[in-house]
């Protein structure tokens, strides 16, 4: 019989080795560049953030900047983002790029960075306070409007629509829905059957759709606030044998969604080019540090992708 304390030491040792392996595997080795920046995204659960990270890191490489990308363990957790910002401030980084998981919740972090004289750039999502050097991104409302307008045009301006909302309170969710609503308002013959949250997740998208399919015998269009929920809705409608009669749009142009569009399962999505948002975010911070003027808002166009142009985007 192994003594208890030995067993404990053994197990603790295993955990530590694993932990070490993890940190070595995930922490990119930083070379000494001209500036040091941290780039904080919202989560790791969506390939969208991975594309943004790739864009930011490419900018770092091109401009000789050390970039450390960080993501909260718990997706969309603003507290963890605040902690990352505080750590960055104590490490005296030159600039902070942060995609606020919560537009209000991030403000104390930005104010702290302002006090320490560290410029803050917010790609993708806005912050509602503090001094932000630049915001880069697509106008979520406009892209939402474009997608909805396109899809409603395909329907011929008539039919039953369901909206899958993003996480309640999330700024992108509110803006995208605003765009959808604005487009729908232009078509008096469009009937919105239901507008419910599926919390930006594929699982929830499937579950909510499975339930709504029970209630509504005829659904012509599902407009989802992101691709994950749209793909969940695809699975639910497919299982119910109603995928053919229902069109589905997403948002973000994730690879799975692009594949789905090329297979004819989804109708359209909007590509915000998160890599460009990340890249421009870093560039803006760089220009600011170099003493160049930077725009307050840096709008990046975001095309609607459907079957006609999906080939160019598919990787």
């Amino acid at each position, binding site marked *: 019989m192994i003594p208890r304390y030995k067993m404990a030491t053994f197990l603790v040792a295993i955990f530590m080795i694993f932990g070490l392996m993890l940190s070595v595997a995930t922490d990119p080795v930083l070379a000494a560049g001209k500036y040091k920046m941290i780039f904080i995204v919202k989560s790791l659960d969506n390939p969208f953030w991975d594309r943004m990270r790739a864009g930011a890191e490419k900018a770092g490489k091109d401009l000789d900047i050390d970039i450390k990308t960080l993501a909260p363990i718990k997706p969309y957790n603003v507290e963890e983002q605040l902690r990352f910002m505080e750590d960055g401030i104590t490490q005296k980084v030159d600039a902070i790029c942060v995609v606020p998981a919560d537009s209000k919740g991030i403000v104390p972090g930005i104010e702290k960075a302002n006090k320490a004289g560290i410029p803050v750039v917010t790609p993708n999502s806005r912050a509602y306070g503090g001094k932000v050097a630049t915001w880069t991104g697509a106008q979520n409302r406009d892209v939402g409007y474009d997608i909805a307008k396109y899809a409603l045009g395909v329907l011929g301006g008539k039919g039953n629509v369901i909206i899958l909302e993003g996480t309640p309170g999330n700024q992108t969710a509110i803006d995208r829905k605003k765009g959808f609503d604005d487009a729908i308002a232009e078509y008096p013959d469009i009937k919105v059957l239901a507008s419910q949250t599926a919390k930006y997740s594929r699982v929830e998208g499937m*579950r909510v759709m*499975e339930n709504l399919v029970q209630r509504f015998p005829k659904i012509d269009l599902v407009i989802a606030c992101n691709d994950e929920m749209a793909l969940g809705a695809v699975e639910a409608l497919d299982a119910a044998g109603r995928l053919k009669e229902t069109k589905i749009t997403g948002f973000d142009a994730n690879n799975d969604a692009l594949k789905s569009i090329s297979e004819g399962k989804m109708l359209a999505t909007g590509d915000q080019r998160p890599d460009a948002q990340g890249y421009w975010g870093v560039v803006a911070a760089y220009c600011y540090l170099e003493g160049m003027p930077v725009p307050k808002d840096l709008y990046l166009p975001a095309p609607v992708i459907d079957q006609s142009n999906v080939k160019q985007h598919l990787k």
Partner: protein
Amino acid sequence: MKFLIPYSRILILLALCALISFFSPHFLQTSNIINILRQAAILNILGVGMTIVIITGGIDLSNGAVLALSSCIAAILLKDAGLPMPIGIIAALIIGCCCGLINGAMVAKVAIPPFVITYAMMFFTRGLAFLFLQGKIIYGFTPEFRFIGTGYLFGVPMPIIISAMVTIIFIFIQKYTPFGSEIYAVGADEEASMLSGIRTKSVVIRVYILSGILSALAGIVYMSRLNASEPVIGEAFPLDAIAAVLIGGTPLSGGEGGVGGTVIGALVITIIINAMNLLGISSLLQTFVLGALIIIMISVQSHSRRLFSLPSIFSANRNGAGS
């Protein structure tokens, strides 16, 4: 009144159904009932594992993360490595088994509180899942694999069949095997059970292993249903499963309750969510309503148990030892 107590959970379920069907005509359609059973299947499989862990006085907060890790690895093996289906499934179950073994060994041999070790395990396995998938999502499985989650056997969806089989097996174990009664004995009074010759540590380890395997099984059904595997799935599952167990009448103090009640607990939670979608309750309100209803259900459960349950030697002992 007393004769009603064993049926109190079923009565709550029926009352809930009656209330909802009053407001929504779509609720009692056959297709919606099948839909609810299919949605409840995964929560039920996890709930069964959680029930036996809780009966021994433990808790397993890692089941959602173990589900994520095992399904991610199965997805990598099936999709990226192109291995045959049984290998992916067996690999997932082995991973679930290993995670359960570590949980159980830490609880039984090293005497770490179950809450602490399974909480740590949750981060550990979730972290590994992120690491293996590198923020990607694996999408699109073969039709054979998808049969597990979306197929039908004799007109019944596969998840319902799997979940029902798990439930029947565990009710059998709980009622008719020595292991079943040992679980209750360990939960009621570990020291007394040890003195009476039960190998309590082995019982605890086996219980966590079973919970781990069931998590992995749920993970396979889950990814087959969703046609995708992502590292974040099942974040809320530990708490959903605990809620199902509590609504089902198994108290966190252990030693009593059972798998049968958990089935009802899982159904109640799924029905509430289904009803909120059918009734079109505002997105902002849904989480609140779910929470409020769970609180009410659990209060009714524990209140009726305290009012009407017969005093048992075990619970008297536990109260004495616990204070």
